[in-house]
């Protein structure tokens, strides 16, 4: 394992001499291996972003936990909490976004900042900002103000998804239509 071709170098420091043994192979493997590992890791996580950054991984963990919790709550009554959980599950939010972009953008704009209908990203709500209240507004509509009762066109599940998507707009505070209704 260790080369015995020890060479005593011809210098001497206060009586201390030195061999000039070659570097052990296994040591060199650790040295070069860790450098190569470092390069690969950097390219994987930083340069190409194939691996998830901690925050991204966190979001995924939260989404999975919400999904599991929703599954456990299946069959139970719909609550503020269940809608909030739904708003954390990307698949549900994406479905809601698709519905929103097809049906709602004429009045609320694609980013939800409001045009004919109110700004959905501020903290003010005309018909209540609680998850169940938002869902109710979508479901039954406000015919007097031109808000369609979407419950007649879409299944309750799709209304849930729409509400979940609207919940993700809450708090973005995008510039747009001035706040209407009551601050939450």
């Amino acid at each position, binding site marked *: 394992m260790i080369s015995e071709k020890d060479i005593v170098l011809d210098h001497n*420091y206060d009586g*201390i001499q030195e061999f000039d043994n070659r570097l052990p192979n296994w040591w060199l493997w*650790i040295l070069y291996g860790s450098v190569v590992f470092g*390069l690969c890791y950097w390219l994987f996580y930083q340069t*190409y972003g194939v691996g998830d950054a901690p925050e991204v991984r966190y979001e995924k963990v939260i989404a999975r936990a919400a999904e599991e919790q929703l599954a456990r709550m299946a069959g139970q009554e719909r609550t503020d909490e269940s809608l909030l959980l739904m708003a954390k599950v990307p698949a549900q939010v994406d479905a809601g976004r698709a519905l929103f972009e097809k049906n709602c953008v004429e009045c609320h704009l694609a980013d939800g900042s409001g045009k004919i209908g109110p700004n959905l990203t501020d903290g003010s709500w005309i018909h209540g900002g609680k998850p169940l209240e938002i869902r109710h507004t979508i479901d039954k509509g406000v015919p007097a103000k031109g808000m369609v009762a979407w419950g007649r066109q879409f299944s309750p599940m799709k209304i849930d998804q729409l509400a979940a998507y609207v919940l993700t707009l809450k708090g973005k505070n995008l510039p747009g239509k001035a706040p209407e209704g009551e601050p939450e």
Partner: protein
Amino acid sequence: MESQSAETRQIVYDDAITRAFIWASVLFGVVALLVGVLVATQLVFWQANAGISWLSFGRLRPLHTNAAIFAFVGNMMFAGIYYTTQRLLKTRMASDMLSWVNFWGWQAIIVAAAVSLPLGLTQSKEYAELIWPIDVLVAIIWVVFAVNFFWTLAIRNEKNLYVSLWFYIATIVTIPVLYIVNNLQLPTSFLHSYSIYAGVQDALVQWWYGHNAVGFFLTTPILGIMYYFIPKAAGRPVYSYRLSVVHFWALIFLYIWAGPHHLLYTALPNWAQTLGMLFSIMLWAPSWGGMLNGLLTLRGAWDKLRTDPVLKFFAVAVTFYGMSTFEGPLLSIKSVNGLAHYTDWIIAHVHGGTLGWNGFMAAGMFYWLIPRLYRTKLWSRQWADAHFWTSTFGILMYIVAMWISGINQGLYWRALDGEGFLLYPDFVETLLSQRILYHMRLLGGVIYFSGLIVMAINLIMTARTGRAVNGEASVVALPRNTGPGFAELVRSKPVVISLLIILAAVLVGVSTPITAPAALAVGVLLAVAAIIGGGLGGGMEKWHSLLEGRPLTFTVLTLVAILIGGVAELIPTVVLRSEVPDVPVPPMSASPETSSDAVSAATESEYKQKPYSPLELIGRDIYVREGCYNCHSQMIRPFRFETLRYGDYSRAESYIYDHPFQWGSKRTGPDLHRLGGKYPNLWHYLHMRDPRNTSPGSIMPEYRFLTDKKINLRVIEPKMRAMKKLGVPYSDSEIEGGVETARSQGALIATDLAAQDITLDPESELAALIAYLQRLGRGPQPTTLEKAQGR
């Protein structure tokens, strides 16, 4: 030797300075460990502070760490450097006067630290707690030491520098760089200052310093000492010169990058975290290079280990060095760190390094030196053996207890039940589960400490049987160096190729997905060219031996090697501040319930981080003074088990006005970043007076004295002005009305408590501390009655 005109002279080494530093090291080693035993006792019996503020854990723990590092190991390091440098250079130190200024200056620093830290005078940056006047003294004394050292290099009678001296040079040039950059601060009085950095920047600079204090204060000089004393004691040549060369340069170049591994999963930008992790892993081999050269030098001398206590201590010391430098990279792996950070595992790690590696190196060196410095024999080999076995047993007991405790903590904190919620939501549950391990740690510490006492007695008795003598040698004056000069050496192939490879690596680091392959190809080509060109083969050794004859060139190259990593990490984060947006910031929610609600609304005002109110600022300074950061973090990591327990994970924007940062590195108690609003004022009042009142099983000290101590209203204005200079947006009217605002906010808290039949002086320190604690993790709180009612 070579020159015919050489004349032989008889010289006497200054060994009195070595003796002085050894005794100082022994004395302060006993003190440092005694304080360690005391704080370990307090973690088992919280009453062990006797209710005295300056004996409380938060104030004594910095004293323990500073004393162990700078007093015990520091004095040992100076003893070793002064002894070996003179012999390796075949000359007496250039100036006895500077040597003694170094000695007395260093002891003055230690005494000043021992007085100021228990008084709560602190910057709260770990191992850099000392207040600014002492920092200035440290810088001056270090310069004195450096001047003396380099002057001695200049008058040497040895052509080349032996490997020990390379490590000393690296130490001497790096420590001031670290120390000065990390201690840049704006004084508000003779005893108080604010770090010029805030939040993320402060954290990065601090841990760049903290990690490299380990690297260049506890590692490089001790490696230099190892390279002298192990071959001496074993009577064997050093195992491999070329290993010395490779591991020296690799070690000092890589070490400086590794600091961010103390900040994994924090609000530090991810790229810096990744760099910290990867460079820590790359440090494994260079560190083990030192271990190999130490252990393999003992080949052919293993039989002496049975009889020679000196070699026994060295062998175990180097083994601990190998263990710690494997554990370090392991702990730097992000996923491992996710488990180990904030836990006792880290405590195990640092004690393996300090007590195992440094402590045993010190003991071996003392047992070798004292008989020689007093021209006598060791008083008792049996006592030395007894020291060896007690300390080995003690340190192992300590480390094993902390390993188990650390992993236990990590697992308790992250344990979830079948429904995905915390299995142990009460933090105290974890604490109670490891009480037996804290007893075991205390016992291990006491055993190690008793070994040190045995050593002290043995050394004193040895010295008494002999008399102080100074080493002598006949030396041949060194002929003028006629080799290649500075420019030639710096332009030579090894330097140019190394720099090009580093440049290529930096290019890979900053490249985009498209340019990365090109940068990578250039790097590989350069590496191949270097190998083919023989830059790393025999030619390199010849070049290095020329370099060893040129201390100035050697020092400049060392400085360049240690600056690269620091510049690459600090400049983008600290100087450019590109990583931390000022506004807008995400909403900061008050309680875990609302913060886990990712879609909660926030009003515009909550989007921007607002400065602390005057009373909160004073309260924060009390938090700093009491050393709360020693047990409490203010940094919630992006793990579900953390956000379930503490609320939404911490983001860089929250800390932009935190001079200094208070992220902490250890959770003996829970995280406090989102404490504000979690409990009523009454809870805090009761908790600070008797933590067990609200949290049965807690081991936190009582802070009753804060009730009676009044805040100093006069300091509010200068403190706010200092903060303003550092970029905190206080308006002039806010500063002028600071005292009034502080009074009314204090009155608000007192009124709230009065309604619950508690009398608290609105100008008491406790009121200020409660104001600060209630502000943590949320926006501005009302400071006047009108505002409070308006909400």
